[in-house]
């Protein structure tokens, strides 16, 4: 006979206000195997825990049931407490009397009845519990960071500074991401490139960091501590081990291509560095536009001119595989394609209606206009500039429902820059709300108002060209007047959306995405940089729109998480995983197909049957990979698999306790 102790928690008044605790205690006393019952005001508190420990000794308990809050909240707390007693930490069941009872019901009598049922089920289940023991797996102390923007760079630097090797993978030819395109950063107005490029160089030169540009993650298998990752090194046609970055090839290349880095407002060559401060400071060939590689001409000028002889037109993609203990995803964002959804703003037919990143390049000293704000259409200085916020943000009908968070501040920055750089300029900012939740942000916005920016509360309804002016029609909802501004240039502050290809990354790492494709953190408040895949962390905008300070903070947080894993020689595994009864296994392999974590594989094993040695295929579970989801249990036709901690026997006991 087992000896079960039951402990009912009041949780202050959280449970006690709705559930009649005395009645639950009374009923629990007559439940099978229960030898001791008590209630506590706060079971999770120090005295509450001590009371359980004392009861275990005094009443010789060998398993316990706690009726309290959700096991998601305090199961780890109570397991830890049990670890210091004679009882195995897994001889514990929690009846969720708070989230699943008192918080969701108002009828005291019915809630009490339900609480009694929940306790009875837990008591029945715990009778079938077995002691479980964690095992340990070794950790490969090398991290992979996917995405070489400021988030990825910061995470890589922090991990590398802690002494662990890091591979930093970036699909573009240079590190830097979006931040290096920006001109100034709010609210301090320090030069974005000036603070970003040193970090890029640090990453590029750090002895613990391997920078892999023009690379993409191709395949991921394994588990926390031991991810096996295959990376595709795209053909660059330039041997970077020899190239000195002298730049002659770029000067000589005859093929001009629209520059992605300059947001379509300047040109680059087919062999190019995206921008002068690129890391690595070495060019690549864009095969689609290279006359030799796309077969349009013989060309090959770069090859004949290169003093190092590092141009190799025969270059091919390479696959590189390595093992990593943890992964940080920092794939960032791009701006929404407003042209296809905002016909009322001209749908892209007016060259002087630009987006925020284009403005950043226009105002940037190293940009196509050398920092002079000039209209893309005719190169003239605009005297009247309209800034439109929330284009594609907060617009579930046409764009995205969410707020992109950074735009209010960079719109204020853009307005400030217009007024600072252009004499006698006028700047109108159409807004719905001004959100300045950040240190020194409100002050920055106020300064922009003092600069003379005219804030108009309303969404622009239409932008069209008439007599050389861009007519912007809106309503100033504060005065109730419909208004129009004849502008020379319009800047649309467009929504952030996840970078193209994020679905692939999410699928590779089996992490979930929200409705807008942002990568899903494990808990919005308490586990903001973790994912539901152990060992994979998020940094920066891939998790949701945010500005640079928040991105960098999150990057460092994810680096801390990675270092936490690496600080241990071995990792404890969760013992609540699937277990195969190889005697019953028919070897059909359905479970291997069902398993979302690729944790089940088929193996040939030798058996003695009727005195003869035979070989049979059976499934085995990798304890490092198994997440204990139970899908294989449901899918196993011979009933050969059980989920430890949730065995079929345990569940049936619960059902019987409730229904019989």
């Amino acid at each position, binding site marked *: 006979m087992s000896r079960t102790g039951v402990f009912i928690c009041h949780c202050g008044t959280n449970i006690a206000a709705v559930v009649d605790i005395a009645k639950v205690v009374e009923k629990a006393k007559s439940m099978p195997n229960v030898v001791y019952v008590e209630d506590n005001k706060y079971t999770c508190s120090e005295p509450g825990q001590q009371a359980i420990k004392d009861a275990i000794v005094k009443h010789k308990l060998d398993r316990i049931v706690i009726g309290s809050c959700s096991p998601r909240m305090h199961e780890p707390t109570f397991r830890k407490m049990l670890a210091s007693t004679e009882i195995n930490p897994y001889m514990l069941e929690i009846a969720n009397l708070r989230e699943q009872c008192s918080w969701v019901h108002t009828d005291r009598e019915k809630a009490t009845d339900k609480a009694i049922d929940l306790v009875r089920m837990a008591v029945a289940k715990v009778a079938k519990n077995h002691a479980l023991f964690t095992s340990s797996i070794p950790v490969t102390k090398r991290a992979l960071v996917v995405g070489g923007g400021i988030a990825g760079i910061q995470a890589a630097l922090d991990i590398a500074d802690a002494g662990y090797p890091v591979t930093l993978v970036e699909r573009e030819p240079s590190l830097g991401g979006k931040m290096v395109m920006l001109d100034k950063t709010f609210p301090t107005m320090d030069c974005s490139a000036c603070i970003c490029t040193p970090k890029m160089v640090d990453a590029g030169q750090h002895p613990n960091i391997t920078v892999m540009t023009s690379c993409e993650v191709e395949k991921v298998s394994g588990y926390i501590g031991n991810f096996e990752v295959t990376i595709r090194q795209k053909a660059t046609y330039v041997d970077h081990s020899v190239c000195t970055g002298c730049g002659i090839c770029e000067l000589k290349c005859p093929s001009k291509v629209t520059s992605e880095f300059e947001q379509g407002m300047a040109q680059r060559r087919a062999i190019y560095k995206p921008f002068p401060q690129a890391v690595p400071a070495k060019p690549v060939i864009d095969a689609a536009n290279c006359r030799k590689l796309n077969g349009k001409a013989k060309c090959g000028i770069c090859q004949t001119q290169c003093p190092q002889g590092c141009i190799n037109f025969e270059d091919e993609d390479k696959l590189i595989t390595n093992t990593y203990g943890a992964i940080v995803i920092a794939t960032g964002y791009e701006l929404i394609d407003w042209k296809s959804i905002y016909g009322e703003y001209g749908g892209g037919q007016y060259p002087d209606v630009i987006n925020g990143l284009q403005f950043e390049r226009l105002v940037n000293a190293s940009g196509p206009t050398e920092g002079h704000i000039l209209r893309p259409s005719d190169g003239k200085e605009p005297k009247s500039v309209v800034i439109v916020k929330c284009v594609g943000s907060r617009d579930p*009908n*046409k764009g995205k429902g969410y707020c992109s968070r950074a735009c209010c501040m960079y719109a204020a920055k853009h307005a400030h820059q217009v007024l600072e750089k252009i004499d006698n300029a006028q700047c109108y900012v159409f807004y719905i709300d001004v959100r300045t939740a950040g240190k020194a942000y409100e002050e920055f916005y106020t300064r922009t108002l003092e600069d003379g920016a005219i804030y108009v*509360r309303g*969404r622009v*309804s239409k932008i069209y060209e008439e007599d050389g002016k861009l007519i912007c029609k*809106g*309503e100033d*909802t504060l005065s109730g007047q*419909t208004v129009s501004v004849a502008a020379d240039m319009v800047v649309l502050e467009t929504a952030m959306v996840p970078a193209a290809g994020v679905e692939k990354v999410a699928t590779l790492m089996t992490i979930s995405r929200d409705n807008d494709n942002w990568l899903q953190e494990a808990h919005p408040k308490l586990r903001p940089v973790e994912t539901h895949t152990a060992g994979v962390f998020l940094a920066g905008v891939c998790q949701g729109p945010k500005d640079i300070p928040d991105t960098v903070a999150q990057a460092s947080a994810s680096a801390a998480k990675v270092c936490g894993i690496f600080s241990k020689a071995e990792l404890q595994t969760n013992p609540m995983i699937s277990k195969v009864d190889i005697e019953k296994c028919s070897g059909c392999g359905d479970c291997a197909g069902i398993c979302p974590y690729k944790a089940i594989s088929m193996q040939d094993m030798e058996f003695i049957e009727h005195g003869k040695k035979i070989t049979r295929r059976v499934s085995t579970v990798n304890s490092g990979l198994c997440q204990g989801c139970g899908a294989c249990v449901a899918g196993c036709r011979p009933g050969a698999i059980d989920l430890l901690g949730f065995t079929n026997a345990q569940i049936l006991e619960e059902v019987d306790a409730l229904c019989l």
Partner: protein
Amino acid sequence: MVERNLTEAIAKNKANIDAIQAKSGVDLKECYQCGKCSAGCSMAAGMDLKPREVVRYLQLGLWDDVLKSNSPWICASCHTCVARCPHNVDIPSLMEAVRQEAKRQGIVPVKEVDVFTNVFIDSVKKNGKLHDLMLTGMYNMKSGHLMQDAWAGAPMLKSGKVGLRPHTVKDKEAVRRLIKNSLKRGESK
């Protein structure tokens, strides 16, 4: 301007406002007052409450103001507002519902629009098809704008664009019954 007592307004008019939401299919809570509707509205210049304000007044329970407003009568139902609205708020439908309710209560802020509607339907009731000459003639008479567009009469008669004799449907009775049936249902609601 007088101070408006919102506690009172919302309590008093909740039923009316719920009814107008149900009838128009518009959820007033969806609107966050960006004003894109007003800004794009071709008729806004003549409205005493701009489209955004109509929604705002209803959000605040200021039902009587909306009922007396000329805006639902002036709305041309061009649907520019809802096409551009971030929350798909069907303002034309809201305007239509308010207008019909106002009319039911005998509130007619823009007489001309009402007269036009009535003589139009009269013409259809009589002939099954629209008779432009009758429409214009009756409209001018009943609205009191006797000479409106009179200059166009002669050339249009001459070009045959308007005729003295109406085009008619053969089965006039069917159209009449249809109109009667529709209006009867409207009353019973």
